[in-house]
């Protein structure tokens, strides 16, 4: 964690948002300092000028001045509304990701950060980024609530188990910066940090190429699907999984649920919780046999099974099945196939910093 930085009073500015947040911060500080000084001067002045000179003195009553109260109240309301609108406007912009953002997955777990680049490169507690390219983080937690906080970038978002949260920014300064977990998560909360390394685009490409690449989550999930025997039942005596993601499912007790990530995850780890109508409760639980990451990979694989693949799951799913979400701004149908393990990615994409045609 130590990044070798010296004592400072203000953080560095490393993202597109940092200067904007800082300007608003300084405005707030100017208003606060002014009001505090005004109060201190007035109270100090009155305490001295009107100090009790005689123990028996009784100052006369003064008439009420409603106009003073109302005008001060309205004036403050005006200042507060300026701050509110300014802050809300900037916040809305912070919540609308840039269109062509580098999508990076983040999984927080007690007590580490697992980061995955779109090409399959993985990092633990470090995030390498190219300078000047907008990046969008899709984050979830494996266990409790964490928070992915980057102070020099002025961004932070809680990472919640069972759902995906996102935040985005564009790094504007090369260097190493702090990554902190900012939501208390148990014993080693204060050790759950790392660093963000922002590099020039060429250096970043070189770094990416040098990282040994595992399969993408979907490819790994496909392999697990085979090796754990899911193939033997699903599509025959068990419900078909093609096109399942996002669809409504009727359960044996009559209720209807949507097959989202949480449903898929629960069905793998606790299949008895929600039984699909018309099927026997024969699926074994995989709790204790699959790690959280393996479950995430399976969920990603099932998510990627489009309806177009049909019900024929007896054929081995191929490792270069197309992914369903855009990567680096390229729609799935335009993406090149994912290469087999061990090879660097050979996706034809424009160099970093340029928008695709």
């Amino acid at each position, binding site marked *: 964690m130590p990044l070798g930085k010296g004592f400072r009073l203000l953080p560095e500015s490393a993202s597109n948002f940092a200067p904007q947040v800082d300007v608003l911060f300084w405005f707030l500080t100017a*208003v606060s300092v002014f009001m505090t000084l005004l109060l201190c001067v007035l109270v100090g002045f009155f305490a001295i000028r009107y100090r009790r000179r005689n123990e028996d003195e009784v*100052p006369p009553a003064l008439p009420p001045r409603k106009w003073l109260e109302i005008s001060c109240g309205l004036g403050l309301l005006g200042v507060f509304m300026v701050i509110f609108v300014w802050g809300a406007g900037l916040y809305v912009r912070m919540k609308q990701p840039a269109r062509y953002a580098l999508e990076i997955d983040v999984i927080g777990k007690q007590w580490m950060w697992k980061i995955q680049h779109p090409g399959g490169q993985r990092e633990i507690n470090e995030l390498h980024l190219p300078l000047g390219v907008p990046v969008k983080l899709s984050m979830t937690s494996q266990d*409790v609530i964490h928070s992915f906080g980057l102070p020099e970038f002025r961004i932070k978002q809680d990472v*919640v188990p069972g759902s995906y949260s996102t935040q985005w920014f564009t790094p504007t300064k090369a260097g190493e910066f702090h990554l902190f977990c900012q939501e208390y998560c148990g014993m080693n909360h204060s050790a759950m940090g790392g660093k963000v390394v922002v590099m020039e685009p060429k250096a970043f490409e070189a770094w990416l190429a040098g990282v040994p690449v595992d399969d993408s989550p979907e490819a790994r999930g496909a392999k697990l699907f085979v090796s754990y025997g899911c193939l033997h039942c699903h599509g025959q005596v068990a419900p078909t999984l093609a096109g399942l993601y996002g669809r409504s499912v009727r359960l044996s007790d009559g209720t209807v649920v949507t097959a989202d990530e949480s449903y898929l995850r629960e069905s793998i780890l606790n299949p008895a919780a929600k039984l699909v109508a018309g099927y026997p409760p024969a699926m074994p639980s995989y709790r204790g046999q699959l790690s959280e990451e393996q479950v995430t990979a399976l969920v990603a694989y099932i998510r990627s099974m489009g309806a177009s693949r049909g019900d024929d799951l007896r054929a081995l799913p191929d490792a270069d099945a197309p992914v369903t979400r855009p990567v680096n701004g390229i729609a799935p149908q335009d993406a090149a196939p994912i290469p087999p393990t061990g090879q660097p990615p050979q996706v034809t994409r424009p160099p970093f910093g340029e928008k695709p045609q």
Partner: protein
Amino acid sequence: MSTELPTSGVPYLPAPVVAVVPENYVLEGARIRSWLLTRDHKRIALLYLASITFFFFIGGAAATLMRLELLTPNRELLSADVYNRLFTIHGVIMIWLFLVPSIPTTLGNFLVPLMIGARDLAMPRLNLASWYLFMAGGLLTLIALLAGGVDTGWTFYTPYSSAFSQTNVVLTITGIFLAGLSSIFTGLNFIVTIHTMRCPGMTWGRLPLFCWSIYATSVILVLATPVLAMALCLIGIERIFHVPIFDPAHGGDPLLFQHLFWFYSHPAVYIMILPGFGVISELIPCFARKRIFGYWFVAGSSVSIAFIGFLVWGHHMFVSGMSIYGGIVFSFLSFLVAIPSAIKVLNWTATLYKGSVSLKTPMLYAMAFMGLFVIGGLTGLYLACLAVDVHLTDTYFVVAHFHYIMVGGMVTAFLGGIHFWFPKIFGRLYPEWAGRIAAGFIFFGFNLTFFPQYVLGYLGMPRRYAGYPEEFQVLNVMSTAGASILAVGYLLPLVYLTWSAKYGKPAGANPWKAMGMEWTVSSPPPRENFHQVPVVTQEAYAYHEMTPQGGSGPILPMSRPGARIEPEWSGQ
């Protein structure tokens, strides 16, 4: 009735002239039993005072250990696990076993009946039951502490607290539940008392502003605390019966807990500051010897804060995954709730104008309150502002903000109130020089402890960290140095006030020449407060009508020689 005179028992023989009326509430019955079974609101106030002082120093000891650990970047003194348990117990004790009860159960219990001319609270037995519930809750929390504590943070966020923590969560939340129940009863008692037991002439427009604050606080206590109780119950149900309410692994929703928790805990912070406002509204007119500027604005602001305070809880959750639109609404409302507080500060300042200002210890505390509360409140604007809150939430900026308000505000107001009403409660004066020295230590130590934390927060240092990057060390060392001075500042009043309660110079009925019904009775007051039902004919802070000898107050035969009227006993 304890004031019933004895008779000889024979109709035609004159009754012996005997005075067996006890002098005051302190001396009437000196046995432990008479204290532990008392129904006298003044004695119950002292029972609470002893309890909350005890808990304050336990919570303070936890904070001392935390600040010692934070002298160095690495975990050299304590393990991370112990540190986590310390900050949790510091929060739990300071909030539920010290701040929430503090002024209402001590000064509120003691003064509200006196201020409105009543003999006691509406439900004296319920008052005593409140204290016993509070002690039961405190005892359970202490047992949990001795059994190893709890490591979830005072906020008990799920699913960590409901499905992951291996510490004494259920024991602690049961303790908090009981303490919360105690506070609901206290709030109920005050509401009924203020509505039904005001003496003749005490209209709402003549009610002291301290009573207005206690009233607003009581409304929040009664409406908000049940939500906390239920949120904690749900955690208990999830932990004991494994019902997945908050655990997403089995279909629960972790954010549901945050909404339930903060729906209580935001109004709770107003529970923790409104009584402080009430104390300051009493101190300033007395020590400026001038009626409060804008009485109805100050009274109305307490009620507005109580109301709007229920609508802003989402500002604790801006980065939690809550919707953007929800965030915008909560941000707007959070800015609105700042305005009534600002109006109060304006009115206090304007009260000093052309007054007669005396800088005795209570006034020093009142002025310290104004400065520190304003700084804390202004930093609340940073946190209400959405874009800046993204950077500052979960950092030391928030820690500094709430300590400026709760410690720099509420604890300061509490000490100011204790010093102001000390002569009334104990019948003795404390040494003024000691009061001023302690106030100085507290003011200086407090600022040195918590101002560097604003800087740390903007730099990004997260909360609840047992260790931190080296570049944050200088500011942390400053903060710990300040904490040591602050600790001395808090120990000093413990010493000289305890000494003065027994050995201080005897105080008269009204050493500060203050207005208010409590100053018209002896110090300490008699058991039944007023020998006859008083009648109020003046506004609350009629300092301009004060005679040179001292406050005039309502017409009361016992305390004003030469009074013209003997009010009829209207029976109670």
